[in-house]
């Protein structure tokens, strides 16, 4: 059999696993293959606009010949693991994507999902989010390997590991910037049993028709005002402090104990994890449910994630947008 040269070089850019021609996603890690034509060109290293050699690309990713900024792989990250999928997008206005997404399946039905949002006023916010998400993901995956995992405890350990990872992010002092810091929302799921943990204002929603609801309570100024009965949701949301968060991960974090909820749904549904770049445009569970209900029955998780992210982009995309969708089927309700 002939071996054409195009087949021999096919490998996943993230985990380097071998790929088959025509693969759209890596079988092993779920990374989308060949997201954009210019990213493939970039693999050659040069400028995607004028073809200048890789040496011409400066530290800020500007081409020193034609000035065009090169897209970063972080600008758009997509992961599809069939049962769960997610999209992280730089949005339309931010210079960098400081959100991070971690998705992993373990064994037959174990899934770990983490969304982190680097705090834009902090140093190395993108790195803080990335490391926190990956560190938490590793702990949750480890727990899923065990037979008798207590998900709430695993979540607490995962957030502890994420906090440690953020502390280790290198930084140099700048008076106008905070220590590296980020928010985190995590989900760990197996056999229809779920634990959600969070610190900050990244959110989790349970979406199942009329039973749709927000599972998390923001650690934010706006939420505190509402909880204290001082302002209505609308009033608090309109205040310029609405997005000031009261808890986060990082060196100056008030504490690193996550808030945790567990659930065991009796009906099939979807778990949606997201950063505020998404929920700014659809804050209510009902709004997200309406968007997902508009999709044909049996729509893949990755398509659902695309749909939600694209809606936020279309609405303005003022912040980084990250959303993960996890299909949850209670045991014995497997219709497939």
């Amino acid at each position, binding site marked *: 059999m002939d071996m054409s040269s195009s087949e021999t070089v096919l490998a996943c850019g993230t985990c380097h696993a071998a790929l088959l021609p025509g693969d759209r996603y890596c079988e092993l890690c779920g990374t989308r293959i060949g997201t954009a034509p210019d990213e493939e060109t970039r693999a050659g290293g040069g400028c995607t*606009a*004028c073809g200048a050699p890789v040496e011409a690309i400066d530290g*800020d990713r*500007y*081409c*020193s*010949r*034609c*000035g*065009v*900024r090169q897209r970063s792989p972080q600008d758009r990250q997509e992961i599809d693991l069939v049962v769960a999928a997610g999209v992280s997008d730089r949005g*339309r206005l931010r*210079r960098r994507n400081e959100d991070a997404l971690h998705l992993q399946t373990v064994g037959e039905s174990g899934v770990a999902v983490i969304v982190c949002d680097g705090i834009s006023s902090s140093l190395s916010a993108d790195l803080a989010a990335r490391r926190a998400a990956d560190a938490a993901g590793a702990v949750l995956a480890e727990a899923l390997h065990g037979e008798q995992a207590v998900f709430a405890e695993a979540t607490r350990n995962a957030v502890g590991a994420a906090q440690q990872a953020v502390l280790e992010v290198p930084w140099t002092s700048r008076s106008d910037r905070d220590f590296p810091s980020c928010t985190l929302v995590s989900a760990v799921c197996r056999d229809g049993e779920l634990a959600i943990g969070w610190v900050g204002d990244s959110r989790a929603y349970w979406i199942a028709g009329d039973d749709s609801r927000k599972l998390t309570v923001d650690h934010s100024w706006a939420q505190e005002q509402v909880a204290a009965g001082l302002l209505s949701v609308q009033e608090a949301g309109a205040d310029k402090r609405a997005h000031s968060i009261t808890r986060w991960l990082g060196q100056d974090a008030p504490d690193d104990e996550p808030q945790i909820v567990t659930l065991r749904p009796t009906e099939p549904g979807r778990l949606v994890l997201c950063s505020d770049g998404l929920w700014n445009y659809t804050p209510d569970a009902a709004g997200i449910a309406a968007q997902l209900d508009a999709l044909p029955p049996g729509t893949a998780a990755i398509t659902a994630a695309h749909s939600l992210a694209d809606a936020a982009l279309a609405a*303005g995309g003022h912040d980084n947008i990250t959303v993960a969708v996890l299909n949850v089927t209670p045991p014995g309700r497997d219709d497939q």
Partner: protein
Amino acid sequence: MTTFTAEAYQNEYLPAGGGEVNAVVTVTGSAAVPAPTSTQAAEIIIVDVSGSMGSPRAKLTAATRATAVAIDCIRDGVMFGVIAGNDTARAVYPQEGRLVAASPQTREDAKQAVAELKTTGGTAIGRWLALADELFAATPEAIRHAILLTDGRDEHETPAELEAVLTDCEGSFQCDCRGVGTDWEVQELRRIATTLLGTVDIVAEPAGLEADFQAMIERAMGKATGDVSLRLWTPQGATVAFLKQVAPTIEDLTSRANPVDALTADYPTGAWGDESRDYHLCVHVQPRAVGEEMLAGRVGLMVAGVAVSQALIRALWTDDEQLSTRINREVAHYTGQAELADAIQEGLEARKQGDEHTATFKLGRAVQLAAAAGNSDTMKLLAGVVDVQDQHTGTVRLKPRVQDADEMALDTRSTKTVRVKKPGS
């Protein structure tokens, strides 16, 4: 030594198909030591001693007195000299065709020599500058500055002769020019000052010379770093529509570009002390697709051949009109200030040509712009040539009789700008 920072102000968003990028870059130099005594400096004072300086007698008296005050302000160790100019140029002090180090003794001797100056002959400014250039040649390491004082037109040489000398002197030393009385040409002195990176102003009353000379020398002595250039990089396919200094005065630097390579050029800015200057850059780039971003320019400072600070000018294409139609306030402010300077110069020119309609329209527009920008100094000067009826609509009437000095003051100072008020200050 001076430390520099460069900061860019702009609206980086462009509409689909748009390619004009505007930015104001503020460059701030802070001298580490307030009195940079370690910096080598050279100073030459050029005094007009043509026949007209003797009538009235007060002109020469004021000029020699002002020169004496300036000499007193030259700090010890600075190499200095005095040139007397008419249709030729003569080194008055020292007479040996070189500069001397300032000391209590040499300053005293110089003042003595200046006190004995007599007026005779015509005016050939190019020859004065040529002698200064020759004297400065012995101090290539120093920050070189000259003051030129004249009361008349450059009548005793051809414009081509003056142009040739200016070309030789450009980049060699900086020169502030002052016209005394009202018989000199604003355009002529402005041309000299602009080429030699200096200022131009009128000293209508000879009595005002002393304070002005003192201020000029003190400013010159405050310069800690010589030969600073702006280095501008623009991407392939882009054109620099203009690069102007817009504060403290408007100077168009566009034609002064010294190419470094195909994409980079240096623009000389002279010597710097503790000061801040603003530059307005306008670059035309090739439009890119919505969502793409381009580096439209990089403005850096070159001090003695070393890059010290830089600001990035960006272009981001968006289909959000709210973003792309917003005009940055710094850019808007200086666009208005540049229009103000043009309106004044064009208005005065029209008035000279007897075109009252254009003069009224242009000077009215100038009043409107000066009022909007809060440029009260220019407002006062405008009030010398027009009667303001409504500053908001720019309704004015030309004054039937205008003092020459008022008109020349408005002309010379038309390029002085006010800076953007920072919010909360």
